[in-house]
């Protein structure tokens, strides 16, 4: 039986009222290597990947959200499928110390995120030359980076840690926030002065993923 892995959590974690997961397959709670493991089981894993995959992904998210509302989790990327329980157990036994330590470390934390950029960044720059276009892109790039510093400052003590990375079109900021500090974080961020034309989108709380520093470098 194939197993679709949603996440792992501490042994105190329960199903929290969950019944159906992806493609209506029941969500099961296993206990392996001193971890609570949440999976769905099926003889035919292709059912989890039925088109459109977006539907399955949304169902997967609903499971994570329900569990995360009650406890810290380490979510796995969709779809992570184990061939059988022994395979899953081998993996967890090899990583249980690391997973347990991360769950303990982030037991009372969530991840808040910021997307900072310019709407329709590629098309909104009206110029007469390619070099002027590039200059404007550069100016916007620097403006976004500078504002990220301002966001971090605005978050203040509500954000225990901040990480960020640039994508092609925007800057993504990730704040590690205590669960009890989320309202304060939002209120602080709302005070930030956003430069003209710039758009900031704040989302969360999400399970902690960006701050998972594994010993082998894999997230």
């Amino acid at each position, binding site marked *: 039986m194939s197993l679709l892995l949603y996440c792992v959590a501490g042994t105190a974690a329960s199903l929290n009222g969950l019944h159906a997961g992806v493609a209506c397959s029941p969500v099961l709670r296993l206990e392996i290597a001193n971890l609570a493991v949440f999976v769905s089981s099926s003889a035919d894993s292709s059912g989890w*990947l039925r088109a459109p995959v977006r539907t399955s*992904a949304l169902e*997967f998210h609903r499971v994570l959200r329900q569990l995360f509302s009650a406890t810290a989790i380490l979510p796995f990327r969709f779809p992570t499928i184990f061939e059988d329980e022994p395979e899953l157990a081998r993996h967890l036994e090899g990583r249980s110390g690391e997973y347990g330590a991360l769950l303990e470390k982030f037991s009372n934390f969530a991840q808040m995120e910021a997307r900072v950029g310019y709407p329709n960044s590629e098309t909104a720059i009206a110029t007469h030359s390619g070099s002027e276009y590039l200059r404007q892109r550069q100016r916007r790039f620097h403006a976004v980076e500078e504002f990220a510093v301002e966001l971090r400052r605005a978050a203040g003590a509500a954000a225990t840690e901040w990480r960020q990375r640039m994508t092609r079109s925007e800057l993504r900021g990730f704040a590690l926030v205590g669960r009890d500090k989320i309202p304060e974080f939002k209120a602080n961020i709302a005070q930030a002065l956003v430069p003209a034309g710039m758009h*900031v989108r704040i989302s969360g709380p999400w399970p902690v993923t960006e701050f998972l520093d594994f010993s*082998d470098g*894999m997230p």
Partner: protein
Amino acid sequence: MNDGPGSIVFAQDDLQDDFSLLDLLDHVLNQGVILRGNLVISLAGVDLVYVGLDVILTSVETALQHMSPALSAGTLSAKKRSVKT
């Protein structure tokens, strides 16, 4: 450059909002733990992570049997991640 005022919005859980949907799909598909030493198969643009190299081919074949002809004959590519020793 004629920019309007800057704006800051807080995402809601409303999945009718395209941006909320994108946030969500990004988290599910691009974030979270990904395992090392596995075969990652890309099928129709979706990366599938199968654990257990000795049964992966079986799984792929089984999966393909259940896929539509368009998918099974389509863009199938496999790449092997570095195996942890």
